[in-house]
């Protein structure tokens, strides 16, 4: 099934090669969790401080549904 993976700022480097911008449509098997998805793209889990699906907070064990927009955001702290 197709879902949208959005990774921001320092996490953007983990999007599929050739991605323009912060979002990529990716194909995943049914039953994939957010943790599975992030691991498949080598996203360092300890750096993901915000996880949202369709604009709502969720956790790594959420089972992704067809068409979901999964967003990962790091903590940006400098000033």
């Amino acid at each position, binding site marked *: 099934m197709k879902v949208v993976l959005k990774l921001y700022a320092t996490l953007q480097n983990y999007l599929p090669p050739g991605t323009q911008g912060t979002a990529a449509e990716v194909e995943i098997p049914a039953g994939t969790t957010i943790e599975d998805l992030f691991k498949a793209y080598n996203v360092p889990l300890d750096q993901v401080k915000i996880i949202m699906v369709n604009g709502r907070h969720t956790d790594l064990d959420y089972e992704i549904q067809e068409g979901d927009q999964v967003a990962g955001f790091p903590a940006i702290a400098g*000033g």
Partner: protein
Amino acid sequence: MERYRRQIILPGWGTEGQEKLRRDRVLVVGAGGLGSINLYYLTGAGVGTIGIVDDDTVTLSNLHRQILYTTDDLGRPKAECAAQKLKRLNPEVVFEAYPISLKNDTADELFKNYDVIVDGLDNLAARNVLNATCLRLNKPWVHGAVSEFYGVVTTFVPHQGPCWRCLYRNITGNEKRKEEFPILGPVPGVIGSIQAGEVLKLLTGLGSKLVGRMLVWQALQGRWSEFSFTRDPYCPACSSR
């Protein structure tokens, strides 16, 4: 008023807007990369009273981005140095310098006399204090943060939109300050400029604010993204549950 003529003639601003700004009080917490830019624009705009909180001193590695300071300022306390510099930019503004760090037990006293708070901080733990204090005192604040080639900016209006912990629900407040982060000098310039614009919009009532919307600047790609978020019903800071 000649000093402010070019903003007074802005649609919706006028001499009334300028007079209001003269009575307004803004607190800038952190006078580093983001703080420098915010302080410059807010001083230029004629915000009546500006508080500057920073317990740090100017170092050589600050100068590629912290445009308030020069080589002559090395070793000087930032809060006092900034106030002195800004007074030369606009002698009509009153500056209140606080060479202290933001602490939970003193933040209420510090914030209570200001209308808007500006985040120029460099760590998560202090932002957690800032967020909690603004929620308690019902103060709007403008968040900015930068690292490497990236910067984010959003505005929080307590109880009218999400708070900072609605975004970072997993922050504990015990996060250690990163001593040194890589940063492209103009990135805090970009983000600080947008923050200052948000502050002026909050004070004048003009436009729609960046509430529930975080802008993300990605300098390497030359792209802006927008990250929308809502109040977290389970937010550890602002939820009543």
